[in-house]
């Protein structure tokens, strides 16, 4: 591995003056009004937030997405038309209209929600579907990105993505538009998990999901 040895030797030859690694303080951000902050932040990035969970998720979905034919459900609360396990190939979710998934973590500062391969099982259901609906227990909200990165998923997951609003771009004339390549809309429903559901508050580990390292 000549390249490896050469590069490592080269970077050690005459490095910049030594510097200690600073301690990152525990910035607290919003602190106590997490739901309000989260809703405001999500609105800023063109996401939608449903603060009161609908009693019937299925009919809420039909009303919100009347044209939707293929619903991919990754949650126990809902029976969609497909589940992630139905996909043999990860490009198949391309014709999914709506993906419903539960997130184990939300960030009030940015309006972000976390999903990993544990929740998705097939990672592309989050990015190939036309619309994304995310269930989030408000108890799983943290104030800032700093607390978010303390979540064990960032140590253990093969794929972990902080999603913040629907996909977009401002590459043409600096005008922000939706969607770009990913979901056209992103809706977060603040709902604690029902019993027997895939609660996001379970500690990770001991999982049987494909793709875990």
């Amino acid at each position, binding site marked *: 591995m000549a*390249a490896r040895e050469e590069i490592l030797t080269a970077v050690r030859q005459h*490095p910049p003056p030594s510097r200690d690694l600073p301690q990152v303080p525990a910035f607290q951000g919003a602190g106590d009004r997490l739901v309000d902050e989260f809703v405001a932040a999500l609105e800023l990035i063109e996401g939608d937030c449903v603060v009161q969970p609908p009693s019937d998720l299925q009919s809420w979905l039909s009303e919100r997405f009347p044209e939707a034919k293929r619903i991919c459900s990754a949650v126990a609360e809902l029976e969609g038309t497909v589940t992630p396990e139905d996909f043999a190939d990860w490009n198949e979710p391309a014709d999914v209209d709506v993906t419903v998934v539960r997130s184990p973590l939300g960030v009030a500062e940015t309006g972000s929600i976390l999903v990993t391969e544990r929740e998705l099982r097939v990672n592309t259901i989050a990015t190939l579907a036309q619309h994304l609906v995310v269930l989030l227990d408000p108890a799983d909200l943290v104030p800032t990105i700093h607390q978010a990165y303390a979540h064990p998923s960032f140590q253990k997951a093969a794929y972990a993505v902080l999603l913040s609003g629907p996909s977009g771009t401002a590459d043409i*004339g600096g005008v922000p538009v939706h969607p770009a390549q990913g979901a056209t809309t992103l809706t977060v429903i603040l709902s604690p998990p029902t019993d027997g559901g895939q609660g996001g508050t379970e500690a990770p580990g001991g999982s049987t999901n494909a793709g875990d390292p």
Partner: protein
Amino acid sequence: MNVKPVDQARNALAFLEDKDQTASFHNLFDEGIWALRERRDAAAREVPEWEQLRDLASQIKEHTLSNLGDYLELFEANARRNGVHVHWARDGHEHNQIVLDILASHGVKQLVKSKSMLTEECDTRAFLGRRGIEVTETDLGERIQQLDHQPPAHIIGPAAQKMPQDVADLFHRVYGSDPQNAEPVYLAHVMREHTRPVILEAGAGMTGGNFAVAQTGAIVTVTEEGNADLSANVPKLRICSVGIEKVIPGVEELAVFIRLLARSALGMRITQYTSHFAAPRAGGEMHIVLVDNGRSQRLSDERFWPSLKCIRCGACMNTCPVYRRSGGLSYGATYMGPIGIIMMPSYDLHRYHELPFSSTINGSCSNVCPVEIDIHEQIYDWREEMSAKGEYSVTKKAAMRVADAVLSNPKAYRAASEVGETAMRVLPHFAIYNRLNAWGRRRDVPSPVTQTFHQWWARNRGDGVPPADASSERPSSETSG
């Protein structure tokens, strides 16, 4: 190889005088890019600890770079533990060859990729294209530039120099879309419709990496579109190219950068997709290529290593008044604007020896840089480097020698300055460089004065016989209109 040096000033003039553009294009470009600076300011205002975050980010990068060998080894060990293949490339060519070998061994003919300035450095797309691999950019701005055979004009918004109508015309030529419809929503839709099928059928996906987290062996990508996620997750084979300077210690440090990056680049608190890839997708294979390409050499440079702290946010070029009136393509380089000026001479001193002079050294860039690179000081120092290395035009050298001779000699200075028109030629500001009377092309020159301050002082306040030209009249010029 005799490479012609980039004449950024001439390119900037062409940008300003471009008759093909509408008269207001330059203003629109300047205002559009300045708007990013304003949004950045607004985002920073929301964060009371903003300056503290900048300090932390700078210190974290400096710590990491001063221990880069250890962090690279730690990163590699953790990535390998996760089942990722890690390769090392000394230069762009070696990188391209490694990528080619990986693709060839899997029989890949179609590759999709997300934005990576590193692959622009290495000219990877052209390399693969010549060897029968079709590469499709999935970032909208990159794709536009790819289709138009142009390099990126801005590191965040590659198509920044195009108006929506330019894109409508381009997409009409390539995709047969409606040339009358220049709405960005429509054009983004055209891109999505044509790129999706390519992504779904691609044999492999390639991404860059904003950060490489040593503690977890994960690569982090930051996008608005989600195209890095698609490129990484849809195909079974995934390659990630990342410069060795992208390594950071752990997720605690990552948080600092994530809070700074989107705010600095776009005035957004975070981009839509902040993605962490630690291991290959189920049933898939993941390769990381760690690339040097001059970084280790720059790291050893006592003066110019700080540019390695760069997290590619583009805030410096957004605030740079010269960039906003020159256009990004005027720099003729992979990296443009202030960060480009201090990085590119490391890649090719002669080719880019004029870039450090495409600046007024006003200091705005250094103060928006999230990792506190002293960019404008580096620009100043690069000028000294150019002078010391003889990368200086003959006329500039001559002008400096004249200035030295006159300004270091009080009597010579007074003699020269007191004689009307000659004064105009004493200062290098007014010296004749490669163009005659450059000052006077677009500006009036200052009016001649009745006497210099020296002469006035000698006549009115000094002792002894005043110089012959002195008068007791109050000196005047036309400043007061």
